[in-house]
């Protein structure tokens, strides 16, 4: 009985991808735009982070250029190139920027990747239909950590 319950709980945790020491979006603490602690309680994987730069909800290169990723065509120009971002910003600052850039850069065009509240006319992904309630964040806690780990490797 007990074992069953535990494994059920574990499955639930795995299914939603939310581990016990994950900080949910509404609990993230920003200090001057930076976030000190890992959001997933784990270290990030820079290789996984590199992939997120180009795909899905990350798609960072829609707006940013990264010279070392020059094999990816069509890099955008909306934000600054991220070359040297690992020199310019600490890990905590990068985590804050990726999780919710609007804290560091007031009014920025950069989307908040780890925020789930306060949207106007929220849609259900790209369907154009309304999304009831709050959405999943654009990136999971672990994906934010992976991206941050990747950004810290961007030194000049």
């Amino acid at each position, binding site marked *: 009985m007990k074992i069953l319950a535990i494994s059920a709980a574990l499955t639930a945790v795995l299914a939603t991808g939310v581990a016990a020491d994950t900080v949910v979006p509404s609990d993230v603490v920003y200090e001057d735009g930076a976030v000190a602690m890992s959001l997933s309680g784990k270290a990030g994987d820079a290789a996984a982070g590199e992939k997120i730069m180009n795909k899905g909800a990350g798609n960072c290169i829609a707006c940013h250029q990264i010279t070392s990723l020059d094999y990816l065509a*069509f890099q*955008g*120009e*909306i934000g600054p190139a991220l070359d040297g971002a690992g020199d310019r910003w600490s890990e905590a600052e990068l985590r804050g920027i990726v999780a919710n850039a609007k804290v560091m850069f007031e009014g920025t065009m950069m989307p908040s990747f780890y925020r789930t509240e306060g949207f106007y006319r929220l849609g259900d992904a790209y369907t*154009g239909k309304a999304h009831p309630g709050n959405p999943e964040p654009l990136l999971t806690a672990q994906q934010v950590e992976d991206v941050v780990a990747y950004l810290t490797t961007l030194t000049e």
Partner: protein
Amino acid sequence: MKNTFKLKTAFACVVAAGLASSAFADADTDKLVINGEIDIITTTVAPAHLENVDTIYSGWHFRSDETQAFQMDDFDNPGMIGVEKASENWDTVDGSEGKSCASCHGEAESMAGVRAVYPKYNEEKGKVTTLAMEVNNCRTERMGAEKWKYTGGTMTDMVALISSVSRGMPVNVAIDGPAQSTWEQGKELYYARTGQLELSCANCHEDSYGMMIRADHLSQGQINGFPTYRLKNTKLNSAHARFKGCVRDTRAETYNPGSDEFIALELYVASRGNGLSVEGPSVRN
């Protein structure tokens, strides 16, 4: 004038400014003359009501030379096929009154100048109406015919025909008097940041025109060229269909084509292009 970077760190600011200017590829300086005879104003000073932009550009300037070329000759412009289809409809009797558009309006050329001033306040209806609404109004109220779907092919072709006879005339929609409250509503919509990506029309088309967003070269999102034939979906597209796509791409709940919100937005966006020539049907990618 354009204020894209608001970095707090002075150092990052210098780096960003340097990169932004080197990467900046603004509107090109090509000239558009259609059929060797219709001069199109594609660049001009911004209307007085625009606060953050000095010069307005047709979306034509932001497209590749190949795409631009399609629009220089009606034989190369695939949007003209829709205009031809609409010309047939113009003369076709439909509905219980036994009339065609031509029965009352004569030649389609009688519509010269109409596109340039729409959307426009309609006294009788007591509201701002679009060309598509006027067409449907004639169909249901004057012809006894069924209305056409707002963004459907038949309607968009007809709007393209009506636009084509105004090509070269400057857009000049009224924003004051009885149209003013609708215009204000449209302006609010233009600056509202929607959806999970929290982007407004202004973020992309006012703050960032001339820049690349992924593979797209951002224009000012003007509608003087509508309906536009898009190489991407190989058909004529109405302004409201385009608005819908742009709102959807912010991961937002869109408004419906023909809704009061999109009518207001169309008036506002049209007014941002006051002074550019009517260009529709234009060609875009």
